[in-house]
């Protein structure tokens, strides 16, 4: 008796603190969220704005049946989530039984290298066959956006996913690659000592990007996390502005025209690429296969493990004898040259580049592809790039042109809330995220403790 009275030494009513008003209960908060979302959806899908009559978009969207349809759909979803436990149970059981029946197959894949190889070959065959049977529009998207950004994503993954360096200006290297191609094929105002073909300009572009990567990295890689991100952002802006303003060097905002298509003439192999997109896809596919092979080896090499150590604890890495600056530079240089390769293919495909092909938005999107797909996982970032390039293009005929990226944004937000590790996360990255959430260790470039310069 006396214990209980003694234990309660505070004067506030704890029960009251614990109690929540009905509208604060998660269930009703979620309903409110859904209703708000319904209004936004109605607005988004409704009529376009009209500068003459500012509220036309609102009245247009809310007076029609559209609003009620949107609300009904979202409240329906809410009801299903909140009260549809039986339905969900059935779904879960279904998923589990499917998962279970797939498990032997999965185990077989894991243990049998030949089977895995067979799977990869199958994917490759599909990647060869399917594009040949799609429309010209999609072939064009596949080459000038999807394939290019898949290469960029694989390169950015080395920097962000493996070395843990937050790079917000990655497209700068893509631009440098593209302009290198223009330069070495002799189409810039400044002429090279000798000209080469588009494909032969690849080594030059790669070396140029390597140098640019080291030049940017050497003074800045002592910075951490957010600081480095700002510096890379600035670097992108510098490259963009130089391309735009130095008329005598890059031809300024008019851009460079007449960059030749690639061609191969080695012994019996003679082939000239033209405007037809499909052959470029095969060229990109070739590069992708080579890169995937090389970078997969890299990830599981000593270098890959060194990057992991640096990402997880730079001070400890240095204490075990790792030259952290050198390995971070290496990641930067590898990423930069990969991006440069994409730049060469792009510029020789379209034959015409100007600074507006390399805006800061693309750098942000490239990072989004990597994070969405799953940092640190090659399969993940390839998927991320493919899906997020596909989405706005697929919406082209369904929603108003200018709304397309809203859906992309919504998808990114939802994804980051429900699956922050990405679609196909790397095992280690996933664990890092879990641990950071649980407050155990903190191993992410994105959430580096604010320390500024490494002492």
């Amino acid at each position, binding site marked *: 008796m006396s214990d209980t009275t003694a234990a309660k030494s505070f004067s506030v009513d704890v029960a009251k603190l614990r109690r929540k008003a009905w509208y604060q209960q998660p269930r009703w908060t979620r309903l409110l969220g859904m209703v708000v979302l319904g209004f936004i959806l109605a607005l988004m899908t409704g009529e376009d704005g009209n500068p003459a009559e500012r509220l036309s978009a609102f009245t247009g969207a809310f007076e029609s049946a559209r609003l009620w349809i949107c609300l009904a759909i979202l409240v329906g979803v809410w009801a299903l989530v909140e009260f549809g436990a039986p339905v969900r149970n059935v779904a879960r059981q279904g998923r589990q039984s499917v998962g279970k029946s797939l498990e032997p197959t999965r185990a077989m894949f894991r243990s049998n290298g030949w089977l895995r190889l067979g799977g990869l070959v199958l994917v490759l065959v599909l990647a060869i066959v399917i594009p040949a049977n799609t429309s010209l529009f999609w072939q064009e998207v596949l080459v000038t956006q999807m394939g290019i950004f898949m290469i960029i994503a694989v390169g950015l993954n080395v920097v962000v996913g493996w070395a843990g360096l937050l790079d917000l200006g990655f497209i700068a290297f893509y631009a440098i690659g593209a302009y290198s191609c223009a330069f070495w094929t002799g189409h810039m105002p400044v002429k090279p000592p000798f000209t080469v073909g588009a494909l032969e300009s690849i080594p030059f572009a790669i070396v140029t990007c390597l140098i640019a990567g080291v030049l940017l990295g050497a003074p800045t890689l002592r910075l951490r996390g957010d600081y480095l991100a700002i510096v890379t952002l600035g670097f992108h802006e510098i490259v963009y502005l130089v391309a735009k303003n130095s008329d005598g060097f890059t031809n300024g905002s008019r851009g460079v025209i007449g960059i030749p298509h690639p061609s191969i003439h080695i012994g019996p192999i003679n082939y000239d690429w033209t405007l037809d997109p499909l052959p470029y896809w095969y060229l990109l596919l070739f590069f992708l296969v080579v890169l995937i092979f090389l970078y997969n080896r890299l990830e599981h090499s000593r270098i890959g493990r060194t990057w992991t*150590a640096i990402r*997880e604890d730079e001070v*400890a890495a*240095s204490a*075990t004898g790792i*030259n952290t600056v050198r390995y971070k530079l290496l990641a930067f240089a590898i990423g930069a040259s990969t991006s440069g390769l994409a730049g060469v293919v792009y510029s020789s495909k379209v034959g015409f580049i100007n600074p507006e092909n390399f805006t800061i938005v693309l750098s942000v999107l490239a990072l989004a592809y990597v994070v969405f797909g799953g940092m640190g996982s090659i399969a993940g970032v390839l998927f991320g790039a493919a899906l997020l390039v596909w989405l706005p293009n697929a919406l082209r005929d369904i929603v108003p042109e200018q709304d397309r990226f809203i859906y992309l944004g919504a998808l990114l937000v939802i994804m980051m809330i429900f699956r922050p590790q990405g679609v196909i996360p790397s095992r280690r990255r996933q664990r890092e995220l879990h*641990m950071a959430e649980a407050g155990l260790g903190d191993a992410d470039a994105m959430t580096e403790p604010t320390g500024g310069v490494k*002492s």
Partner: protein
Amino acid sequence: MTEAANFEKETAGSVTEAPAMLELVDLQVFYGAIQALKGINVTVRQGEVVALLGANGAGKTTTLRTISGLLQPRHGEVRLGGERIDGVPSHKVVELGIGQSPEGRRVFPVMTVLENLEMGAYRFKGVPKDDLERVLDLFPRLAERRTQLAGTLSGGEQQMLAIGRALMGRPNLLLLDEPSMGLAPLIVQQIFEIIKEINDQGTTVLLVEQNASQALQLADRGYVLETGAIVMEDDASALLSDPRVRAAYLGEGAA
């Protein structure tokens, strides 16, 4: 030679006159305008355990960071086996045979215990089996948890891992920064016993501690650091019975 070396001869009489391994000579280290070390002289002889004691902010960690090349002295020298090593970059100091367990342990949280130990052997471009066996023998707790992620280990286990990882680099000199920090007395006891064993196997140890009584029981000699200056140095047993040390660091009433 310098005054420091002469001074050493007088005070370290009871310890066998093994050659000096590490010497800090009039070491002055600054953080910007703040002077953290005001010219300290420390000598660690081959085979010794030397304790560097001091309260929070005395400059203990600064001393270790200077030895391991993370900080540059503005004045004075760090000598290893008679040669200057200040200015050697931190990742190269490992190759000189100096291993360290940094302040706050700093294991790689998302690597397993085994992977952490393998990183410790980084400078060998491979993992020597003998070293791994030796470390797992020293730390049976780690052997049991070899596939567990380091970030999920208890504080004591993480400290063991940090020491084990340093040992994987096969150091001649082991720098330990407050291995007892935040650990239960029983665990501290265990860890200090292991440090003793490591020393018996031939590794020289520079032990930075606030836990003066434990450290001095283990050490051969000790230095007391106060606001960046050495205020006392003597045999560990002498320090342990010194009234000033007892008052300031062992929580006893003023003598």
